[in-house]
């Protein structure tokens, strides 16, 4: 294999692993739930992303044909990770009075959806 490509792959692998580790570190050491939520979303993006690019480059180089299916993993993660994060945030928000006291007002008559009362009774 071309040493340049090899180096690129190795670098991408290391970058990916680094961000995964940082994400986990954030998860482990940040002081509250909402902050910890930031950790994994980083791991998802640059961590997995770098690894997948490494995989694309590696297989394209070794097989001689363009390997792109790894991109689909990224596609799915981009589609799903924000949902997971928001659902977790909402669950935490609902369960923690302390957290509720920290949120900023909506600036509108309606409250935040998680905390709103009677949203669907009105329908």
């Amino acid at each position: 294999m071309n040493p340049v490509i090899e180096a690129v792959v190795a670098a991408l692998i290391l970058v990916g692993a680094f961000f995964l580790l940082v994400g986990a570190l954030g998860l482990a050491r940040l002081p509250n739930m909402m902050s910890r939520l930031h950790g994994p979303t980083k791991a998802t993006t640059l961590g997995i992303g770098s690894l997948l690019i490494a995989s694309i480059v590696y297989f394209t180089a070794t097989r001689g044909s363009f390997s792109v299916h790894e991109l689909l993993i990224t596609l799915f993660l981009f589609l799903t990770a924000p949902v997971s994060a928001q659902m977790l945030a909402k669950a935490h928000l609902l369960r923690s009075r302390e957290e509720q006291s920290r949120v900023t007002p909506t600036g509108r008559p309606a409250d935040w959806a998680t905390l709103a009362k009677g949203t669907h009774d009105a329908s």
Partner: protein
Amino acid sequence: MTLLLVVLVPFFGALLPPLVIRSGRNTCAMATGAVTLLALALLMSHAPAVFLGEVPKAEIPWVPAIGLSFSVFADGLGFFFAAMILTIGLLVIIYARYYLSREDPMGRFFTYLLLFQGAMVGVVLSDNVIALLVFWEMTSLTSFLLIGFWRKRADARQGARMALVVTGGGGLALIAGLLLVAEAAGSYQLSEILVRGDIVRASPLYLPALLLVLLGAFTKSAQFPFHFWLPHAMAAPTPVSAYLHSATMVKAGVFLLARLWPVLAGTDVWFLIVAPVGLATMLIGAVIALFKDDLKALLAFSTVSHLGLMTMLLGFGTPMAAVAAVFHIVNHATFKAALFMSAGIVDHETGTRDIRRLGGLVWLMPVTGTLALLASASMAGVPLFNGFLSKEMMLEEAAHTAYLGLDFLFPVLATVAALFSVAYSARFAIGTFLGKARHDYPHQPHDPPVGMWLPVAVLVVPVIAIGILPGVVAGPLVALTAGAVIGGPLPEYHLALWHGITPALVMSLAAFAGAALLLLGFGRADALRLRLPRPDAKAMFETASAGLVVASRRAVAAVHDGSLPRYAGVILATLVAVGGYGFWSATHAAGTRPLLPVSLPAATAFLALLLASGMVLLRHGDRLTALILTGVVGVIVALAFLQFSAPDLALTQISVDVVTTILMLLALNLLPKTTPPEESRAVRWRDGLLAGLAGLGVAALAYGVMTRDGTSISDYYLAESKPGGGGTNVVNVILVDFRGYDTFAEIIVLGIAALAIYALLDPALKGAAVRRIKAMLPHEEAMDAHPLLLVMATRVLLPLSLVVGTYIFLRGHNEPGGGFIAGLVVAIALIMQYIASGYGWAAERMRVDAQSYIGAGVAIAGLTGVAAFLFGRPFLTSTFGYLTWPVVGKFEVASAMAFDLGVFLTVVGVMVLSLAQLSRVARRIDPAPHNPEPMDVRLEPAASRAREG
């Protein structure tokens, strides 16, 4: 063949009474009588041959494998007994016609009676020991029905149960005994066994066989100490008592002793057991009889006493004693049946059977009274009546018998028994029929209709005839019967009224004298008896029964306490013990397969498994946490599958875990969220220890296997997958082809699960469950049921998932994937629609309902398999080929993929249906109309306009 009919006619005839009862009671009785008469006539047709010394036989093979054949023979003994049973049966039927009241179901009564009669005849005519056992137990069963005929009376029920348990139980012992006798003799035919007495007595099986047979005989014939059931069986209608408890059934035990006399008798053991049992029974029966105030009870214990007499005689083991026994059997049958019927008439006419309230009846009902007095004279052993003759023979035999060197024991006790016998007979006769006529009866007693007293009269005739002319009247019969019992040359004997001054005559006279004294001092004797302890057999039996029931109940309840942990614990302990035994009882050597080096990710995954499992162990009380941790375990298991080259398994595990988690969450929503800590520390340690031991065992087994090499049929799959199955993913080809039958059954398991879930949850939507669901107040919850971001993401995900599902399905035959996994992926995408946009909104948009997916899936899979029939191939035979299309190029078509499509559809249907059903229950909590919109966030009208624009 007609001999077989003697047995069969009563059985088939038993169908008759209920059929003709509509035509009236007379018809019914006549039909029953006719049946008996027919049987008797058939029997009598053999009489000439029997008296000529022939032994008529007949046989229908039944179960050769166990030596059972329905075979009968009529030697002297069997013939005599059969004749007696049928004759007395006839009389009892006539008597019963008048005895039974209009309220009594006569049809049923006669059915039972004929069944009993058939069984009894079967016992005495059987040539096959197993057939004999069959009939023997049938007499117990039918007597149960007869004793309990007045089923609304507690004493009848108790008496019937007691009789059944004692005689039926004895019958069970007899089964064992006779099987051993037959084995020792090498034949199941009595006629053969009877001539092999020497072989049997020499066999090591003799003693157990003898003891078991005696147990059967003694219980049936109410011998001490099994005599207690008989009086309580008197709760039966009098015809039953007369028939069963004096004339026939109780004699079955004595019959059996006589029947097997050539085989079993003549040894010391026989004498040492049988003779004293008979003696004791004779004595105790007589003593109790004297103090009974109830006529039937008195007669019942008298019967016990006389059965003892017969048993004792047979127990002596000498031919002469056997002759005496046979003679007494004949005599007792006549006078005792007559007395029972008389007692019945008295009861019928006066409304009481209590001697203390009776007296002088001979003046009020002269015919009955006279007949009864004659019969009781015979029972007392007064000369000129047949009872005297056989009693004299008994005393004569007793006088010459020494037991264990005690030469006075038998003579003295036999005399005492005779004394009591005279005394109770006298008390019966005098107390009931003699003395002043009383006028305090509820109704003025009269002689009954002729139909009731005629049977008594018929029985009294031989009582007197034999008594006066024994040699002429009874001689041939006794000779015939005794000959059969002895099974060899008869001893020198002479049936006559006068033998000179013999020891027996002296003993007899002593008995009469003593009896006179005893009766004079009856009041004092009775007072003395009342001061002695009087065990009440019925109370004891009932107490013992209740105790048995309670003890059983406690024993069962103690272990079957409904506790799943305990059940599981015992099962696991058994598994560990038996598994451990299996391992240690066979040879084992450590494997030599080189181990794979441990990798860091594997070690980390193991650590994760350890942590998650350990935490579940400690924190399972918090159910949600336990569920999250289970999810972690699932991820690790999937990774393990990947690590060890099982991508298909990993894919399946990943997707199944998702569905399982949702399922559990749906349930947890309605279940308590925590498990209360209940068990003590000791229990937890015990469980932990047991579980740990099992875990250790399983781990050791797994390790043992993984460290050794082995060969397997899998090489064939690897070789044939492509050429034979048309696919390169061997796992998939195994699933859809090599072992497609497993898969077919497996999707049916899923289908059944869905059906069962549906059936289970349907009723949860009504009744107590609904009240409970409604009582669950909605807990603190976000009002945002369908968050916008979630809804939008799932909208994109659904089509993407379908593409991925198609992809996984299509390539499953060649690469990791396949119908299962594709089905799971699509199902999850559909379930996501339910989760995100709400059940109502999503279900409306589902084009096909889940049940149809299941049905269609199973049908496609099944029909793909059946299609092979058309080509003369077995179920599920597959085929594949390659098609070439323009542009698209060459691609493979395999029938196995059609099968896989069935799998796919079923999986989708089952997953969606199960979860949807489960969620349906929870949706009952909140009966408010559901938001028809897919999102709860209410966008401004501008948004709608923008969308339309």
